[in-house]
C-alpha cells in the first residue's frame, strides 16, 4: 500500500489554509490604525454584555472625537489573566493613558508601576487604585443607603413595619457588595428586627431561579433588593409567576437598565426603584479625566452620583436617562 495523499485530506488542507488566510487578514484589518497626532487611551472595561454598553461606548468615542483622542476598546473578557495580557499589549504598543476597571483591584499594582515607569497615565475605573493618577467611581455606598431607606420606608408604610427581605448579591465585586451591604445597613438602622435572606445572583436567569427558591421557602418575602437591574428583572419574573399576591411588593436594582426604567415609567407593580447612573456622563468622564491629567485642568478624582428612580420620578428625568439607549 502506497502512502498517497487522499483527495479528501487535500481538500481539508485547502480549507484550513484558506480559513487561516481569512482569519489572518480579518485580524490585520481589525487592528486599530494609529490616527496621526492623536493621543491613545486604552479603555480596559471588559464587560460588553450590559444593555447600556453600546450607548455608553458611543459616548466614550464621542467625547474622544471632541477632545482629539483615540480610544482602544477592551475585548479581554472577565478574567484577571486575560486583562493583564491585554493591558501589557497596550503598554507595549505605547498608549498614552490607560483607564482600567480591574478584574481584581488587588492584582493591578504591577501594571500601575509599569505605567509610572513608562510615563503612561493610569486612571482607575470604578475603583480607587493606589498609585494611580486619578479615578472615576460611582457612589455605591450612598446609592445602597438610599435604596435601603426607600425599602425601609416601604416596609413601614405598606407592610406594617415588619418584613422579610431578600438580598441578591455578587460577592466578587466591590461595587455590588457595597450596593447590597449599605442597603442592608440602612434597613437594619430603620427597622432593627428585619429578617434577611441573601444569596448570590446577578443576571436575570440566575435571579429568577434564586427568587423562585426563596419564595418557596419564605413566601412572606415582599422586598427584594438586587445588586443589578438585570437581576431585578429575574426576581420580578419569579414573583409574577409565583401565584403570590403582587400587592405591596418592592423590587429594587441598580444601574438604570432600559427595561427597568421603562417599567418604572409605566408604574410597574413589582419594580419600585432603580439606582441609575447617567451612562452618557460616565462615558464622557472616561476621556475627560486623562485629558485633565494631560492638561492639568480640573479634578482627576471623580465620584459620579446615582439618580434614584422610582415610579414617582418625573418622566422627563427618566427619558433623559433612557436617551443613552437610543442608538
Amino acid at each position: 500500500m502506497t502512502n498517497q495523499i487522499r483527495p479528501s485530506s487535500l481538500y481539508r488542507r485547502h480549507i484550513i489554509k484558506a480559513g487561516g488566510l481569512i482569519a489572518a487578514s480579518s485580524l490585520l484589518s481589525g487592528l486599530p490604525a494609529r490616527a496621526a497626532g492623536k493621543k491613545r487611551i486604552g479603555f480596559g472595561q471588559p464587560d460588553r454584555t450590559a444593555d447600556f454598553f453600546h450607548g455608553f461606548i458611543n459616548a466614550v468615542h464621542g467625547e474622544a472625537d471632541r477632545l482629539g483622542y483615540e480610544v482602544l476598546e477592551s475585548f479581554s473578557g472577565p478574567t484577571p489573566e486575560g486583562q493583564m495580557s491585554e493591558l501589557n499589549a497596550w503598554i507595549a504598543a505605547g498608549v498614552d493613558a490607560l483607564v482600567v476597571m480591574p478584574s481584581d483591584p488587588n492584582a493591578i499594582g504591577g501594571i500601575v508601576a509599569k505605567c509610572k515607569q513608562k510615563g503612561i497615565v493610569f486612571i482607575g475605573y470604578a475603583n480607587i487604585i493606589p498609585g494611580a493618577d486619578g479615578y472615576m467611581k460611582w457612589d455605591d455606598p450612598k446609592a445602597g443607603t438610599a435604596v435601603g431607606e426607600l425599602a425601609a420606608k416601604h416596609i413601614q408604610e405598606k407592610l406594617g413595619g415588619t418584613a422579610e427581605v431578600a438580598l441578591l448579591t455578587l460577592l466578587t465585586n466591590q461595587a455590588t457588595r457595597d450596593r447590597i451591604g449599605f442597603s442592608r445597613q440602612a434597613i437594619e438602622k430603620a427597622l432593627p428586627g428585619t429578617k434577611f435572606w441573601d444569596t448570590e445572583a446577578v443576571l436575570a436567569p440566575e435571579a429568577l431561579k434564586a427568587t423562585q427558591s426563596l419564595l418557596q421557602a419564605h413566601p412572606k418575602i415582599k422586598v427584594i433588593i438586587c445588586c443589578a437591574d438585570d437581576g431585578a428583572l429575574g426576581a420580578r419574573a419569579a414573583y409574577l409567576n409565583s401565584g403570590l399576591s403582587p400587592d405591596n411588593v418592592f423590587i429594587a436594582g441598580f444601574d438604570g437598565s432600559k427595561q427597568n426604567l421603562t417599567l418604572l415609567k409605566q408604574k410597574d407593580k413589582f419594580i419600585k426603584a432603580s439606582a441609575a447612573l447617567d451612562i452618557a456622563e460616565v462615558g464622557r468622564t472616561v476621556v475627560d479625566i486623562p485629558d485633565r491629567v494631560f492638561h492639568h485642568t480640573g479634578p482627576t478624582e471623580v465620584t459620579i452620583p446615582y439618580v434614584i428612580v422610582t415610579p414617582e420620578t418625573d418622566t422627563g428625568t427618566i427619558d433623559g436617562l433612557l436617551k443613552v439607549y437610543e442608538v
Partner: protein
Amino acid sequence: MTRALLEWAQRNGLFFALVILFVFFWLSSERFMTTANIAVILQQVSVVGLIAVPGAMLVLSGYVDLSVGSITVLGAVTFGKAMEAQLGLGVSIVLGLMAGTAWGVLNGYLIAILNFSPIIVTLGGLAGARGLAQLVTHGFTQFGFGPTFAILGNGELLAIPVPVWIYAAVFLAGAHVWYQTPVGPHMAAIGGARDAARALGIKTRTLPFWLYVASGLASSVGGLIVSSELDGSSVSTGVGMELDVLTGILLGGVAFTGGRGSLFGVLFGTIFIGALTNGLVQINVSPYFQQVAVGIALVLAAGLDVLYQRLDRIRFSDEADDPADPVPAVSQQPEAVK
C-alpha cells in the same frame, strides 16, 4: 426481581446520593419537600436537563459541545429580534429554533464531517455565537412578548410547569433512542473505539453530525423557554450553562472519554445540582459558603457513585469465582446499556 433491583441500585449510586440530599434538606427546611417546591426544582433544571440529553449522547460518542450556552442566547435573541420586527409569534419561534439548529449543523459539519477538534470548534462557538448575539442586539434586551408566549415558560399543565413537560418529552425520546434502538450501542461503540465501530459499519460521521444538530436545536428550545420565563430575550441568557450541562452529564456518570454512561444517571445528576442549589437557598446558607457547599456535595456524590461501582465489581467478581452461583456477572454486559 429483588436481584434486578439490587443490581440497578448498585449501578446508580448517584440516585442514593440524591435521596440523601433530599432527606437532608427535608429535615432542614419544612418547605423543601412540598409539591410546589418540587415543581420549582424540576422547572429550574428543565432547560439544563433537556440540553443535557443530546449533550450526554455526544459525550457518550466521544464528542463534546461547549457552545450550548451561547447557542441558547443566539436562539433567544433571534426570537426577540423577530418579535421586534413584528414577524409574528409562530415565525419568530421558528426563526429562533432555526438559529440554534443552524449553529448545530455548522458544529456537526466541522467536527463530524471535516474532523475538526470538538473542543476547539465548540469553544469557538462559545465565543462566536454569544458575540453574534451581542452584535445583532447591540446588547439591548427585547421584552414584552405577550401572554401566549408566556405559556411556554410559565404555563402549567395538570399542575406541572410546561418546561417540565418539554423536558420529560425530550428525556423519554432520548431514553428510547439510548436504550431501545441500535443508536444507543452505536454511540457507545463510537465513543469506545471509533475505528472498530467504523469497521463494523457504524456511521461514525453521520451519527455525531445529527447529535450536534440535536444539541443546537435543544439549546435554542432552552433559549426560548428562558425568554418566556423572563418575558425578555436578555443577552445574559445561558451564561455558564455549558458548565451546568457538562457537570450534570459527568456527575451522572457518562465517561468524558466516551463509550460508557447512563441517561438516567444524567437525569439524577441534573436534578442533584438543581436540588442542591434550591436547598442551599432555602436553608439560607451564607452566599460565601454556598460555592464551597456545592463543591463538597458534588465531590461526595461523585465519590458515592464510584464507591458503589467498586462494591459492584468486588461483589460480582466474588460471584464469578463462586462456581455454585448460576447467575452470570452483570459486569460482562456492555457498559453503555447499563
